[in-house]
């Protein structure tokens, strides 16, 4: 089932530096730097865009084949969600 993705704004702070995102997890004071693809995904995570839509946009933007994009993006989004940086929901979310 497709899910909507939002930044976990209560628990994170981020800034785009040199065109790439640096995300701080305020809960444990760790930070994560994202590459250009990760930054693109991070920017799309607005609560109104689903995982499938994000994968489609990644394919268009970076000329990646759909299977690879599906696998890599799903893993990446799942990883950030596990760390509490992103929130996944079956319904559109406010903010993000």
């Amino acid at each position: 089932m497709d899910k909507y993705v939002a930044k976990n704004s209560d628990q994170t702070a981020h800034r785009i530096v040199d065109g790439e995102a640096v995300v701080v997890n305020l809960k444990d004071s760790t930070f994560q730097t994202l590459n250009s693809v990760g930054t693109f995904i991070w920017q799309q995570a607005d609560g109104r865009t689903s995982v499938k839509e994000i994968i489609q946009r990644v394919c268009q933007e970076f000329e990646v084949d759909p299977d690879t994009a599906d696998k890599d993006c799903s893993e990446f989004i799942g990883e950030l969600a596990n760390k509490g940086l992103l929130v996944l929901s079956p319904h559109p979310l406010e903010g993000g």
Partner: protein
Amino acid sequence: MVTGNRNSLTLSIGGISTVISSESEEFMAQTKERYAKFFADGLDPALKIELEVLAPENVQRSPISFGESPEVSLDRSKGGSTIAWHGLSGKFDSRTGEGKLRCPLSPASLNSFLRFVYSLVLVKEPGFLVHASSLIRNGKGYVFPGESGAGKTTIAQLSPDSTLLTDDISLVKIVNGEFTAFGTPFWGALAIGGENISAPITGVYFPIKDRKNCLKRLKPKQALERLLPHVVFFAKDNEFSKQLFMLCCDFVTKVPGYELYFLPQSSFWRCVDSG
């Protein structure tokens, strides 16, 4: 300066003045000696810290540890931003700027508490503390962040033509739109406090001991990755942490960052100057 039966003195660190008071004359005598370069009597203090010196038998009974990594709790619901630090049994209310500290007879206790207090109040300035040595050379500020053993003190020792701001904890603050380094009494292995002066920061250099002198320019993101682990901040509070993070982002965007590979010789300055 004596107020009633209580000794007090005013310090100015990073342009923020703090009045320290205690009934223990012995403690105040130690404090006056340690902070001599940072006296600012006559200034209207922004912060007030009251000290109670614990008798040795009370220190021994205390279950509280005196480590370098204090546990900090922050309760905004009780009198605003009141922080209780369970290390030296200190409290600081960032709304009123007043703090109380119960500690053994040691200026190091006050030093730890001051680092804690300044890490909080600086964010509003805005500014921050960072594990770094810093120097002024030809009117320019140089900051060298790093963990223990990275070379902070070595850099300070190899810089006779410079004025020491600190060899351990640097104070960075925006003054007139410029990131500026201030001297601090927070010293490391040198055991010498910095001068109480400041200068706009011309660069941030991450020292790496090597067999050659070499300067490598960092992109702001790379500098941020290297800077963040060294920023001093005790309070686990989302709003404070966000402000501090954004400030660090501004810092690496405005101040050039470098990796400084250096020999234990003052010749590394030629490399820095050429950068």
